[in-house]
């Protein structure tokens, strides 16, 4: 691996990103002459969070909310002034031709039909991730997006997150030196159930506990973290193995509530991943460990932990630090040098917006400025396919090879 000296690092590495990234992510979102008219399909938990973020973006307006469930539709529509309500996305597309973009936040296995219809109607599409629950659907979505003539952004949020952008340039500049190990986890105590008023409705709402429809913890949650790893490294694992079991919620479910996976990359580097619904300790993070330093990312914050023998970087004099038991983490803050000069370094800790906001803002900006999206359909499909194979590895209790041909564009 390259070992940039300090001058080179300051030009291309952390010193560079501390200055270079700030203007873009601190700038207010673009304001087109007319706000982008958006229709939201799926007003569940994620859909409602999306509505909250879209409301603060000046460059767009939510013109329609769509959900097949009456109470969810009402709850979603209540959050938006003047939005029309629809029980079906086809009705929405038919009755609102002025709609310019569609945000898809339905259960994963329902994405494909909605995406294909929206793209066929010449709408720009933001689709929550994972993109689909089968390889075939992933490929179909990628094909539809490629030939649509409108923009498609997959909802993997790390690529829009300023802290992750900062950390990625860091990792790719070689500051970690020899990459040894990757770790990631998503631990949160919850039954992951949604209450339903009838047994039928209960089954419908709890699709993520249904092995036939859901990609489980590793796919539905884990692929967001996998995508960060793929994006940072610029490559995909070649195999995956894992185990899953029910450790906490013996409530009739078949889907494991605890999983552990090992992804192998071509060069021998391993990503160790775990997810559990039994315990919340340390929540969700990704860790890139190299022989000079480790970078830990937790979505709204990030840190670098240096080895004692690692060279000192010039910008470290400005650094804000946090202690974690015996370790000292240097907080990753975009625009750190400038904030330090103003005596406001601590104010830069943490993101000023949610990771979801940045993903949606990127989408709206891409449409307004006809710029490439943060995460394309092809990139989103590749990460989703790796997640699908990870899900298979747990179900089959065996190692699954990840054929590079499967990840190629058709």
């Amino acid at each position, binding site marked *: 691996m390259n070992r940039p000296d300090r001058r080179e690092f300051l030009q291309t590495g952390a010193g560079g990103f501390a200055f270079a990234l700030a203007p873009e992510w601190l700038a207010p979102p673009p304001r087109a002459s007319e706000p982008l008219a958006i229709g939201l399909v799926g007003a569940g938990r994620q859909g409602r969070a999306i509505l909250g973020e879209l409301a603060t973006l000046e460059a767009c307006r939510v013109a329609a909310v769509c959900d097949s469930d009456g109470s969810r539709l009402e709850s979603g529509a209540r959050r938006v002034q003047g939005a029309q309500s629809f029980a079906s996305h086809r009705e929405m597309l038919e009755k609102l031709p002025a709609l310019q973009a569609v945000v898809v936040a339905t259960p994963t296995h329902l994405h494909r039909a909605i995406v294909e219809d929206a793209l066929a109607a010449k709408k720009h599409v933001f689709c929550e991730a994972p993109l689909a629950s089968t390889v075939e659907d992933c490929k179909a979505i990628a094909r539809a997006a490629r030939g649509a003539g409108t923009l498609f952004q997959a909802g993997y949020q790390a690529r829009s997150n300023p802290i992750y952008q900062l950390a990625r340039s860091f990792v790719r500049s070689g500051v970690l030196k020899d990459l040894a190990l990757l770790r990631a986890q998503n631990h949160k105590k919850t039954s992951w159930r949604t209450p339903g008023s009838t047994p039928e409705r209960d089954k419908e709402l709890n699709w993520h506990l249904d092995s036939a429809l859901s990609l489980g913890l590793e796919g539905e949650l884990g692929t967001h973290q996998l995508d960060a790893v793929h994006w940072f490294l610029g490559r995909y694992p070649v195999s995956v193995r894992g185990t899953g079991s029910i450790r906490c919620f013996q409530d009739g479910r078949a889907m494991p509530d605890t999983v552990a996976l090992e992804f192998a990359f071509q060069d021998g580097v391993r990503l160790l991943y775990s997810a559990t619904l039994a315990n919340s300790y340390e929540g969700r993070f990704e860790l890139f460990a190299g022989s000079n330093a480790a970078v830990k990312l937790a979505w*709204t914050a990030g840190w670098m932990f240096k080895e004692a023998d690692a060279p000192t970087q010039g910008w470290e004099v400005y650094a804000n630090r946090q202690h974690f038991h015996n370790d000292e983490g240097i907080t990753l803050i975009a625009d750190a040098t400038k904030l330090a000069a103003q005596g406001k370094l601590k104010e830069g*800790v943490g993101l*000023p917006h949610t990771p979801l906001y940045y993903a949606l803002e990127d989408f709206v900006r891409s449409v307004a400025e006809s710029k490439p999206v943060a995460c394309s359909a092809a990139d989103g499909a590749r990460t989703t396919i790796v997640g699908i194979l990870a899900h298979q590895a747990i179900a089959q209790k065996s190692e699954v090879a990840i054929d590079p041909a499967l990840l190629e564009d058709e």
Partner: protein
Amino acid sequence: MILRLAAAAMGTRFELVLAPRDARDEVRLRAAGEAALERVEECDRRYSLFRSDSLVSLVNREACAREVRLDEEAYALFEVCLDAWRASDGAFDLTAGVRCQAPAAQTQQEPGTELDLASDRDDADGAWLRFGPPSRCLAPYRLDPERRTIRLLAPDASLDLGGVAKGFALDQAAAILRENGLGLALFHGGTSSVVALGAPPGSKGWSVRLAATGERLELCDAALSVSAPHGRTLERDGRSLGHIVDPACGASAPLGLSAAVSGPSATLCEVWSTALVVLAARGAHAPGLPTGYAARVSRASLSLPSPALAP
């Protein structure tokens, strides 16, 4: 059979007590309870002053300089708080932490945003307020009903929803429980704000004790909030100062005061329990509470006329 669920949010612990009939019912109740707690966590993410990515932090960063757009939920909440500011003659104020700073800030108030307290009073006996010299109080922020935006009206203003966010989260969470058919539950946030659904079998309500007075209440389909300056204090010049500040003068309300308000909405209970402490500190009589609310203000040396608390 009792099922207890909890979540850490807003710097405190929210706890929910449910009573499932059997193991099968427990699965259903746990799912509904978790949905309610997730709503609390969502409120924390949106309204916390201590999260850089919250909506309140966005407003505090940007709404002094420009109008910030809100979704309907946030707009409605800020509207309720502005109404309470008017109704309490400024005793309840989301910007209380910075309001004491400023004649300079007040001179920059935009035209048409002032509320003349003298002319807006509607008290029958005309004796319930004893403000200091200022007879005009300044609106903390302006809401645009057309554009659904908020604008802070002092250059250095910032909002702190504090207990109101807790009450709002409890209201939202209780609504989720009701939507899911739960009629029996007790839900509290940091023990200072509580919502009771239904009444345990054989009782008129959930038994709740007021720590300040030792009084026991039975709550049924109602919320209760208690505010007391001693709940959070800081030391200054060898003195303990409570966290409730009179927005009109910046003075900390005396320790030992406390106000309890019960009624249908935990949000309004939080609003009015804070306002009543401030009004009591001013030596003022309490204004008329919204219909359906009852309050009690207590201090050894102070007893304010107010409706009885128990329903």
